[in-house]
C-alpha cells in the first residue's frame, strides 16, 4: 500500500497500518533528521518524537493538500530544524561564556542505505544549480540555517538569498521533473 492510503487508515486509529507506514517512512524520516541534527543520539530522539507525532496527528492530514510523504517529511524537517537551532543557541551561549574550543566533530554521516535512484537524481540536480542557489538551498534545508543566517554566511543581501532560494527550488523542480 502507498503512504497516502496508509496514512488515511492510521488517521482512523489502525495500528497495523501504522506499522506498515513506519516501514515506508522511518528511513526517510531518520535520514533527514540525522542530516540536519547530526548528533546520533539526538537524531534518534527527534525521529522518535516525529514518528509518534505522526501517529497522534494523523487525523489532521488532509489528502487534498499534498502527498502523505510530503506532509510527513515536512513535519520531520520542522522538528529537526527546531532542535538544531536550539542546540546552536546553547552552543553560542557556551562560547560566549568562554568555552571557545567547543567545536563539535560533525562528520559527514556515512552508513547510508544503498544508493536509491531517486537519491542519485536529487544529487545530480543539486549539482546543476548555480553555486549561490545550491548554497542558499542546502544551508537552509540540510543545515537548518535561517535565511538571515544564510545571508550572513554568504555575505549576501537578504533579498538575494530569498531569490536564490526560490530559483534554486524551481530549478530543482524542472530538473527532477514531475512527481517521482
Amino acid at each position, binding site marked *: 500500500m502507498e503512504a497516502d492510503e496508509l496514512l488515511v487508515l492510521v488517521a482512523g486509529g489502525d495500528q497495523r497500518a501504522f506499522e506498515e507506514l513506519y516501514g515506508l517512512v*522511518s528511513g526517510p524520516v*531518520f535520514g533527514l533528521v540525522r542530516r540536519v541534527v547530526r548528533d546520533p543520539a539526538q537524531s534518534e530522539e527527534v525521529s522518535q518524537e516525529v514518528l*509518534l507525532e505522526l501517529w497522534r*496527528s494523523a487525523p*489532521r492530514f488532509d489528502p487534498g493538500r499534498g*502527498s502523505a510523504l510530503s506532509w510527513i517529511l515536512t513535519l520531520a524537517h520542522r522538528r529537526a530544524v527546531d532542535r538544531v537551532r536550539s542546540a546552536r543557541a546553547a552552543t553560542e551561549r557556551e562560547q560566549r561564556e568562554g568555552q571557545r574550543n567547543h567545536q563539535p566533530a560533525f562528520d559527514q554521516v556515512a552508513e547510508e542505505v544503498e544508493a536509491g535512484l531517486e537519491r542519485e537524481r536529487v544529487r545530480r540536480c543539486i549539482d546543476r544549480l548555480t553555486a549561490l542557489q545550491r548554497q542558499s538551498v542546502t544551508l537552509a534545508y540540510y543545515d537548518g540555517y535561517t*535565511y538571515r543566517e544564510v545571508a550572513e554566511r554568504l555575505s549576501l543581501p537578504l533579498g538575494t538569498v530569498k531569490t536564490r*532560494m526560490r530559483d534554486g527550488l524551481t530549478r530543482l*523542480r524542472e530538473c527532477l521533473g514531475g512527481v517521482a
Partner: protein
Amino acid sequence: MSVLDRLMGRDLHSLAAPYALDALEGDERRRFERHLKGCDRCAEEVRALTEDAVRLAWSTVAVPPAALRERVLTAVWTTPQEPVARDPSRARGSRQPARARVPWFRPLFAPLATTTAAAALVVAALFAVQATQARDQLDQERAQAREIAHVLAAPDARATAGRDARGRGIGVVASASERRAVVTLSGLGTPPDGRVRQLWLMRPNEKPRSLGLFDGDTPLVADGLNPNATSLAVTVEPSGGSEQPTTSPVVQLALETVGFGE
C-alpha cells in the same frame, strides 16, 4: 489596501521559498502563516515549493536503529490520537493544533523503600479486595496474599503506576530478580457482558504473551516475567481469554522503571 500593506504583502510574499525550506525564525514563521490564511495564491505557491523542498530529503535516506521501531510502536499502543479533523475552513486559525508534550499516561514511580503514591495505590487496592471478599474465598485469598507479600518483600521490588485522563489506572509491584509482578487495576468498572480483562507481557520483536485473566478487582500475580519485558498491557477479551490480544489495550504500563527491559 494601503501602500504599506501592499509593500508588506510583497515582502511577506518573498518569504514563500524560505518558508518552504523552514528557514524562517519563529516569529517570522508565525507571521507568514497568518498571511497564508488570507492569501490563496501564496498558499498554492508554498505548497508547490514545499513539494520541491521535500525532494531534497530523498538524498538523505538512512536505516534507522532497530530499537527505534520498538519504542515507537510500543508508545503508539498507549498514545491517543488527536480528535478527527474538523471542517478545515471553519477551523482555520480557530484552533492551535494540540502540541501537548505531556504524555497521556503519566507514570508515577519510585523504589518501594519510600512510601509512594504508586505503592499506596497497590496497597489500597489490596485492602479493598480483602474487605469485600466472601469468607469461603479466604483461603485462596490468603494464598494469594502470601504470593503478593513474597513479591513485596523481594529486595529489588519496585512499584509503578499510571492513570489516564479518564481515571483508568494500573498499578504494579514487580521484582526483576523474582521475575514476578502483582498487578492491580482501578477505575475500569465491570467488563462488558461476559467479557474478561486479560493481562499481556509486551516484549521487543515478540508477540504479546498472556499473563492471565483478571478476576474482578482481585490483584493478579504474574510470574515468569522475561527480563526483556518492556510493558504490561490489559485488553478486554471474550470469556476464557484469547491467544493473542484481539482489541487495543485499555491500559498499558512501561516496566523499565521497575527493573525490566534490559
